[in-house]
């Protein structure tokens, strides 16, 4: 009866739930973050099983890799704080447990009652894919049919980096630790390869899983390697370039939309003859913006003029 892959799915599901619980109950905060990273990689596996390779790539690169790096950096910064603050009272825990159980039961009933294999929007996408300029449906949705969402998503990234720069203004950061010559050599070896991989992911997005976000995340990894190995140190003089990088994607994306609109069409209704060129242009600049913004989010603080005493590593 049972398909062996279904057994695999069930085991994976149980492992995911166990990891999620472990993330919340483990005492050591470093272990907590490592467990979360493992959890993220396992979800990527689950997404492959749900035939969503694009989501798996994005989850592994952005939701797990970059988020994990950010968390570990924050933990390094706040490691002096006591790990276990005042515990909540048992009554509160049980009350919340009851509420959450109710939420779970309610959602589970709603989920069971819904038919899983409803037609959805796949037929419409398949009908219009020829006019979209790309052959991969997810890219077509992201960059053509729902391009407005994607524009807003890049705006959210811009808002995040502005907020982070404002919040961290004037904070002294623990100086980045030098990871040694071997790591630096590895960075020199891996950098060109990751640039190629990022560009490949961007390019392949036109007809296979991949695209601007996955490519941007791979290129952001270049930024992380540069920062961690000390091959690049952000200077105050580089701020204008960084700012240009942050807004480049939005600027080009929005001007393409306005240009299309000025030709008597709707803002994101690219003329089919030029759709491929326009999408590639937008994807290219958006990838650069995503990469720069994600790397800057990892670095955190805006590079300000720092006193000489702090610049030594």
């Amino acid at each position, binding site marked *: 009866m049972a398909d062996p892959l279904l057994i695999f799915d069930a085991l994976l599901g149980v492992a995911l739930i166990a990891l999620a619980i472990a993330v919340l109950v483990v005492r050591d905060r470093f272990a907590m973050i490592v467990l979360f990273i493992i959890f993220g990689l396992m979800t990527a596996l689950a997404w492959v099983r749900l035939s969503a390779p694009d989501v798996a790539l994005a989850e592994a690169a952005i939701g797990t890799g970059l988020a994990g790096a950010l968390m570990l950096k924050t933990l390094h910064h706040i490691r002096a704080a006591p790990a276990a603050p005042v515990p909540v009272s048992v009554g509160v825990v049980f009350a919340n447990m009851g509420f959450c159980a109710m939420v779970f039961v309610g959602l589970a009933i709603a989920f069971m009652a819904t038919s899983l294999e409803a037609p959805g929007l796949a037929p419409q996408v398949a009908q219009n894919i020829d006019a979209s300029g790309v052959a991969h449906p997810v890219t077509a949705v992201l960059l053509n049919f729902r391009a407005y969402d994607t524009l807003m998503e890049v705006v959210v990234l811009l808002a995040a980096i502005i907020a982070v720069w404002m919040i961290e203004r004037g904070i002294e950061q623990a100086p980045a630790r030098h*990871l*040694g010559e*071997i*790591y630096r050599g*590895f960075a020199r*070896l*891996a950098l060109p*390869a990751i640039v190629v991989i990022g560009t490949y992911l961007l390019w392949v997005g036109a007809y296979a899983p991949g695209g601007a976000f996955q490519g941007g995340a791979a290129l952001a990894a270049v930024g992380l390697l540069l920062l961690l190995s000390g091959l690049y140190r952000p200077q105050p003089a580089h701020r204008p370039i960084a700012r240009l990088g942050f807004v480049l994607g939005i600027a080009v994306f929005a001007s393409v939309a306005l240009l299309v609109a000025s030709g008597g069409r709707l803002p994101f209704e690219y003329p089919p003859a030029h759709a491929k060129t326009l999408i590639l242009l937008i994807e290219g600049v958006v990838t650069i913006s995503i990469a720069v913004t994600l790397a800057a989010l990892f670095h955190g603080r805006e590079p300000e003029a720092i006193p000489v005493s702090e610049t030594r590593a």
Partner: protein
Amino acid sequence: MILDILALTLIALGAAFFVAGTIGLLRFPDTLCRLHALTKADGLGMGLTCLGVTLLAGSAGEIARILLIWFFVAASSAICGHLIARHVRRATDTEER
């Protein structure tokens, strides 16, 4: 058919090495021993799995990509091992001082 069986054997062998590495990770007493178990056994497991998958691959492009993946996973796991060992050595040095 013979190719399939060979590939499956290699992948199963690779999985066995991963299991051995994980047992080492759980059972060995200190960080350096655990690292030893992980980097050695997982490196071999990874290589065998990649070899098995290469036999099943359809085109030269796929084989090239699998080999690239193998190379970068091997390189980065070696670097990770190095960084962890370095950290451990520094931490124990400061404790003894």
